[in-house]
Each structure stands twice: as structure tokens, then as C-alpha cells.
């Protein structure tokens, strides 16, 4: 005769020790307990769970358990609502070779009854789950990663060529707070590439214009408009409010200012610059990887560093490079993958080639080196000076 449900439970009890909540609670509360795997369904998990538990619904147990555990010898406590599903789940794990598996007697119900601490999961709302479903499906992002993005704050310097696509995609991705620093207004000549703006918003501040587009795309995103130029007096306060800064500035004084300030506030700096058919991108991780000045100790003179306004830029190039920045910002915020830290990516749209150069920390870097005397300076004067006087760099 096939075994009944009761037979299965009885068979499981023979190999799986059951642990009373009051016996294991002191270890769990001290953070020294076994790895707790909660095998209930998502709707049950959402109502609360044991502190520190990981959630693997029963149906996914076999496929996901190895990713959650450090090995078959790890001490595991399986929990469910009443202690039955967990018993069967634990038996399955024992069959899979896990040697140190117990089941929580009476389950979460008894745990709660005995007034042991309960952790409420931070969860996406139903609307958020739907909106960000393609993120949630990615193992490296998942619900937890999406919650991290929603809690994150990104500061974009410039809502122009690079800032337009970067801000648009970061907003779509659900980065919870986006700061836009731009004192400029939308001009008709911007619209060939600055896709977050519209023809009917010509004349409007770029931050305000971008805010309107973001509100239409994802009303959940908090947009902070900073309608001024970033400068020595405001940069530290600004950066201090954000988790990552995306540099889409159009001039060297601002870029060197951001480079130094991001070291001071230890804010990761996602860099890109563009001209004609070419784009550069990198990530500067303060005191961990190289900084902007390790890469470019000093700016070129003006005739070797024309702006896009002077030399032109292919509109779609902004989309590629702005989205490289958005990608890197998301990776920085989630702590996943390998960022461009230590590498300069060069995109040549004419040849359709991506080239990488190695960027190393300069031990003598005047900004991040061990002997650096880092302080915010008059970057306008410094950038104007280094171009004309070769010696300035040495003393700067």
C-alpha cells in the first residue's frame, strides 16, 4: 500500500530531529543559530518570519538549496507554518545528502505563540513586483536588489547628453531618488541627443524638464532638482546626500572638482565623456581603485579639449555612453559584477569598437596618493593655468 501523509511524516520523524522554538530561540536571537530555511509560500513569508531566515518556497527547495547553503555539512533548521511541511522538506534535504538538518517543531505559529522575535520582510508591493518583474527574475538583482535600488540615491551632474539617457534608465530601473544638477535650460539644439527633454519644454530648466519626463515614466521616483552649477561651496553637501555620482559634466573644472570631492565624501564616481564619435567611460572607486587624476593628472589646453558645442557629437553616442554609466551606477549600487574601476572603456562609434585601457592607482597621485594634500581649489583657474604653463601640474 502506498504510504499516507501520516506515514510520510512518521518516516521523516525517524531521521529528522525536531527542535522546539524555546530551545533554539536563544541561539537564533544571539545570531548564532543554524541557517534557517523557511519553506512556506511567499504570501505566508510576507506576514513575518524567524530572524535571519532565508526564504525558499517548498517547490523550489531542491533547485535552490545549494545556492543558499555553504555545503551539505552546514547546520540547517527548516521552518514552515506548523512544522509538517518543514519536516518533509528536511527529509528531502537529508535524502539530498545534507547531514545536519532539523525541523522547527510547531513551525512559525508556535514560534510566534511563544513570543520569540519575528522579522517582517521588506517586500515589494504588488504594483512594484509587476513593474520591476524583469529585474526580480534576474538572480543577481531579485526582490532584494530591487529594494536596494528603491532605497538608493543617484546624483547626476548634468541633465544633458549623458544625463538624459542615464537619468531616464535609472528612473525606469527604480532607483528611488535621482538628483539632477543643471543650471541650464533646454535649447532646441539639445534635442538631437538629450532625449529626456521635449520640443515643448525648450526654455525650461533641464532638471525640471527631466523631472517631468521621469514623473510620467515612473512616478515613484523622487527627483531632486538642483538648478545650479556644482561648485566648491556646494559639492560636498550635495555628494554627501547620494550613494553614487554620475558625471556627465561638459567641462574640466567640474570634472576635477567632482573627482576630488568624491574622494572626500567617498562617493563612487561613474565617469563618461564624449566627443564626435568617441566616448570614454570608467568608474572611480575612492581609495580602492584609481581616481580621475590617476588617469588624467591634468587637463589639456582648450584647443585640445573642445566641447561638444564646439566640435560636435553624434547624438546616439550619448545614448550608448549614458547607458554605460547607468549600467555601472546600478552595479555599484547593487554591488554586483565587475565595474569599470581600473579600466577606461573607449567606444569608437565609427569603427564600432570597444577598447579597454588599464588604469592603475598612481602612488604619487596629487588627489588620492598617500602624500596627497587633498583640498578643493579654484578649478577654473587651475584648469586655465595647466594648459598654458607646463610647470603648474608639478606644484598643483
Amino acid at each position, binding site marked *: 500500500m502506498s504510504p499516507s501523509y501520516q506515514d510520510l511524516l512518521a518516516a521523516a520523524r525517524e531521521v529528522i530531529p525536531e527542535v522546539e522554538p524555546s530551545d533554539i530561540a536563544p541561539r537564533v536571537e544571539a545570531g548564532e543559530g543554524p541557517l534557517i530555511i523557511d519553506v512556506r509560500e511567499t504570501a505566508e513569508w510576507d506576514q513575518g518570519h524567524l530572524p535571519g531566515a532565508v526564504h525558499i518556497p517548498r517547490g523550489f527547495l531542491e533547485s535552490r538549496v545549494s545556492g543558499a547553503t555553504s555545503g551539505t555539512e552546514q547546520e540547517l533548521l527548516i521552518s514552515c507554518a506548523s512544522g509538517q511541511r518543514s519536516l518533509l522538506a528536511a527529509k528531502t534535504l537529508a535524502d539530498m545528502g545534507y547531514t545536519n538538518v532539523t525541523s522547527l517543531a510547531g513551525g512559525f505559529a508556535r514560534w510566534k505563540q511563544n513570543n520569540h522575535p519575528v522579522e517582517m520582510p521588506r517586500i515589494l508591493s504588488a504594483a512594484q513586483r509587476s513593474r520591476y518583474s524583469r529585474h526580480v527574475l534576474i538572480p543577481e538583482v531579485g526582490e532584494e536588489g530591487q529594494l536596494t535600488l528603491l532605497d538608493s540615491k543617484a546624483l547626476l*551632474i*548634468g541633465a*544633458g*547628453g*549623458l*544625463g538624459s539617457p542615464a537619468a531616464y534608465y535609472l528612473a525606469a530601473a527604480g532607483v528611488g531618488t535621482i538628483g539632477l544638477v*543643471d543650471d*541650464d535650460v533646454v535649447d532646441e539644439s539639445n534635442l538631437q*541627443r*538629450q532625449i529626456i527633454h521635449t520640443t515643448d519644454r525648450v526654455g525650461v530648466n533641464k532638471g525640471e524638464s527631466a523631472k517631468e519626463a521621469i514623473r510620467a515614466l515612473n512616478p515613484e521616483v523622487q527627483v531632486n532638482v538642483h538648478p545650479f552649477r556644482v561648485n566648491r561651496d556646494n559639492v560636498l553637501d550635495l555628494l554627501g546626500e547620494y550613494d553614487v555620482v554620475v*558625471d*556627465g*559634466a*561638459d*567641462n*574640466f573644472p567640474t*570634472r576635477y572638482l567632482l573627482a576630488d570631492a568624491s574622494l572626500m565624501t567617498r562617493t563612487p564616481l561613474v565617469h*563618461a*565623456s*564624449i*566627443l*564626435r*564619435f*568617441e566616448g*570614454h567611460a570608467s568608474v572611480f572607486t575612492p581609495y580602492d581603485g584609481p581616481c580621475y587624476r590617476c*588617469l*588624467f*593628472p*591634468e*587637463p*589639456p*589646453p582648450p*584647443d*585640445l*579639449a*573642445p*566641447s*561638444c*558645442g564646439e*566640435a560636435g*557629437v553624434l547624438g546616439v553616442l*550619448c545614448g550608448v555612453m549614458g547607458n554605460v554609466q547607468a549600467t555601472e551606477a546600478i552595479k555599484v549600487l547593487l554591488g554586483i559584477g565587475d565595474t569599470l574601476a581600473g579600466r*577606461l572603456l*573607449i567606444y*569608437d562609434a*565609427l*569603427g564600432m569598437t570597444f*577598447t*579597454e*585601457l*588599464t*588604469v*592603475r592607482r598612481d602612488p604619487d597621485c596629487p588627489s588620492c596618493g598617500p602624500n596627497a594634500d587633498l583640498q578643493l581649489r579654484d578649478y577654473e583657474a587651475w584648469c586655465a593655468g*595647466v*594648459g598654458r604653463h*607646463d610647470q603648474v*601640474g608639478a606644484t598643483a
Partner: protein
Amino acid sequence: MSTVKIPPVLRQSVGGEREVDVSGATVEEVLANLCDAHPAVGAQILTADGSLHAFVNVYVNGEDARLLQWTDTPVGETDTLVILPAMAGGAQ
């Protein structure tokens, strides 16, 4: 001959090319030959005494020449040099 990749700001000085083939066994020789062939390049990347401006980076096969042997860094026949001044543009 090694291949030298020319940044956008210097392309006019080499007749619009994105890369040019230049002979030379070291970074110094390659740059000297490049500047001989295209004097307008030299005017922009070399100082009055003929040394390279501090704002110009040179990479040999992706590595910063300053961290190799700088202008003495050997250059092979199939090597690629990148001349790289910083770019400012964010297309405001």
C-alpha cells in the same frame, strides 16, 4: 610598423585618419616619427623642449606607458599605441 590610434582632437592633424602606422622601436621613436610625418601633431602634444605634455597619456597594448618604461618602452611591430588626452564633453 606599430599602429597608433589617434584621438578625435588630433585627427585633423593626420589628415582625418583614426589610426596611422608608424615605425619605431620605442615609444619615443614612434612619437618622433609620427610628429615628423605630421608636424601639427607635434605642435599639440609636445612641449617646446620636445618632451610629451603631461596631459597626454600614451598606452602600449592597453597599458599606461608611464607605468612601463615611459618613452623608453619598447614597441613591437604588431603593437598598438593609443594617444589619449582627456575629453571633457558631456554634451550639455
